[in-house]
């Protein structure tokens, strides 16, 4: 029997094979990233703010109870930077990405991939992007829905003015991009944590603590966190609290490429870890 790949009949270049392999892994993983009891918490985190805002849309509120659009924009900014970034995306990514490899070890199915002629880097990239796709659908989708729902009660006329002639569309794109970057960054970090720690709760707790106290840390320490760069990009800055230490926001020209570079480094570190993985879940 001859193998059409090893005798070169179906292969045009190594890169094409790697891309095909990564896409094949994504196809197999995507279903797992969207379905399963384990994802109930992720659905809850993504949908909870949408449901709350839907209730606000349909509730018979008086104009004074509704507040001005400017006030609503500020409330959204607070909710986004505190609940969405620091809580929903954080725990959502933790649930999705720490399980990409851990789940396979627990279900004793990791050998399915480890027995295929696939570079460990390609395997990590395929799995990471499948998780990222799910995280983006959940949380960027939630961000877009929430942002639109915040302004729906002000009527079609205001919506048109705000999104077409005002800054609405720009804010929407910025919030969506920040959420996407949060998924990219937290996703990579949790992928690595899932590979190095049997129980990811403790390192995740430490990371959450660090991200939470970030605003009271000295300026140079604030820069060693994900949330600092994300908040720097948000279109509506939050008023600093009484304990906050003011630090210069990092420009998008630095934070975006820096974020991408750091993510690539973390994925490479994950690939090194995967290349040293052993299947020890059998009893001889």
């Amino acid at each position, binding site marked *: *029997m*001859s*193998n*059409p*790949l*090893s005798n070169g009949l*179906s*292969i045009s270049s190594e890169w094409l*094979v*790697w891309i*095909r*392999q990564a896409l*094949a*892994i994504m*196809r*197999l993983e995507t*279903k*797992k990233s969207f*379905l399963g009891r384990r994802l109930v918490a992720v659905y809850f985190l993504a949908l909870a703010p949408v449901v709350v805002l839907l209730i606000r849309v349909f509730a018979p509120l008086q104009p004074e109870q509704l507040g001005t659009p400017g006030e609503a924009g500020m409330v959204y900014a607070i909710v986004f930077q505190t609940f969405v970034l620091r809580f929903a995306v954080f725990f959502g990514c933790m649930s999705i990405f720490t399980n990409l490899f851990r789940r396979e070890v627990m*279900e*004793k*199915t990791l*050998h*399915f*991939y*480890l*027995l*295929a*002629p*696939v*570079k*460990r880097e390609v395997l990590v990239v395929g799995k990471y992007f499948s998780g990222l796709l799910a995280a983006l659908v959940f949380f960027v989708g939630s961000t877009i829905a929430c942002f639109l729902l915040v302004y729906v009660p002000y009527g079609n006329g205001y919506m048109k003015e705000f999104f077409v002639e005002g800054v609405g569309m720009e804010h929407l794109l910025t919030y969506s991009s920040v959420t996407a970057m949060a998924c990219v960054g937290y996703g990579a970090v949790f992928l690595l944590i899932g590979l190095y720690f049997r129980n990811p709760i403790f390192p995740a707790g430490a990371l959450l603590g660090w991200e939470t106290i970030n605003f009271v840390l000295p300026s140079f320490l604030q820069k060693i966190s994900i949330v600092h760069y994300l908040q720097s990009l948000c279109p509506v800055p939050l008023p600093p609290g009484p304990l906050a230490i003011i630090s210069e926001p990092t420009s998008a020209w630095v934070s975006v490429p820096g974020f991408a570079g750091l993510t690539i480094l973390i994925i490479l570190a994950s690939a090194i870890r995967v290349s*040293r993985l*052993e*299947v*020890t*879940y*059998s009893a*001889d």
Partner: protein
Amino acid sequence: MKTDEDRIILDNVSKFYGEVLGVNRVCLSIPPGITSLVGPNGAGKTTLLNLICGLLRPTKGKVSVLGQTVENPDLLYRKLGYCSQFDAFPKGLTGLELIYGYLRVHGFRDRDAQQMAWSALEIVNLTDAANRKVHAYSKGMRQRIKLAQAISHRPQVLILDEPLNGLDPMARAEVIALFQRLAADGAHVLISSHILHEVDMISDRVILINNGYLVAEGNIRGVRNEMQEHPMQIMVRCDHPEAVAAKAFELNHAVEVKVHDDGRGLLIRTRHADQFYLMLNRIVLDCNLSIETVAPADDDVYSVYQYLIGTDGGRL
């Protein structure tokens, strides 16, 4: 280390799980053909197979498969297929999706992957169940789908951990015929099995392992001949067994002779089987003996296993 391109080579390989020994100082050079790995539970068979497949890394020593080291999975697994004992599959997949998905992960194009997946399913007689979820498969079907996965990319080396488990006699015969076909085509088929009579029937070579150590390796008859401390048993069915017995006792290498209860044969234990066969030839000519059967009685895997590992070696 040998760099033989058509062999599986283990060069002084040891594997420890912390303080626990998996296998110790194993040296093997496995040529094409069917090789069986035999040993009691916990002997280190699966560890050895996982080391060859790269699922485990040796604590010491080196492993290479057809010249490829296990550090390069992207090259190794083009040549190697592994039917593991792990009875777990990615959730929610049908038999066809499992094999097709596996081939896509290999990098095959859609059309090739489809064609090869169906071909593998056909070989293991699972085409009717191709669109059923693997989790709904019976034990025997799961065994066959694992086999289909292992052979789907047409590897030159096939490693099979207890591949006959759970198969009915018919399926077992078909699978054995498949192994023989692959071996005849020049493939390496390395089988771990505890069904000794089938191992004996299909293997070109055996590897006996116990407590993590290599006990014996090679052609089973060759291994048996090396075991001088255990006299060979030869069964002779003939019309005058007492004449053969009398002559046999003249040989100083004959340890024991037992004439069969029906008086139509005997069992001799001798340290020099070749000399006994020469003597038997002479008796046939001198006494006009009518011989029905002459056969070694203990040069099969089972006997070698009993001699080298014994019942103390653990349950098979």
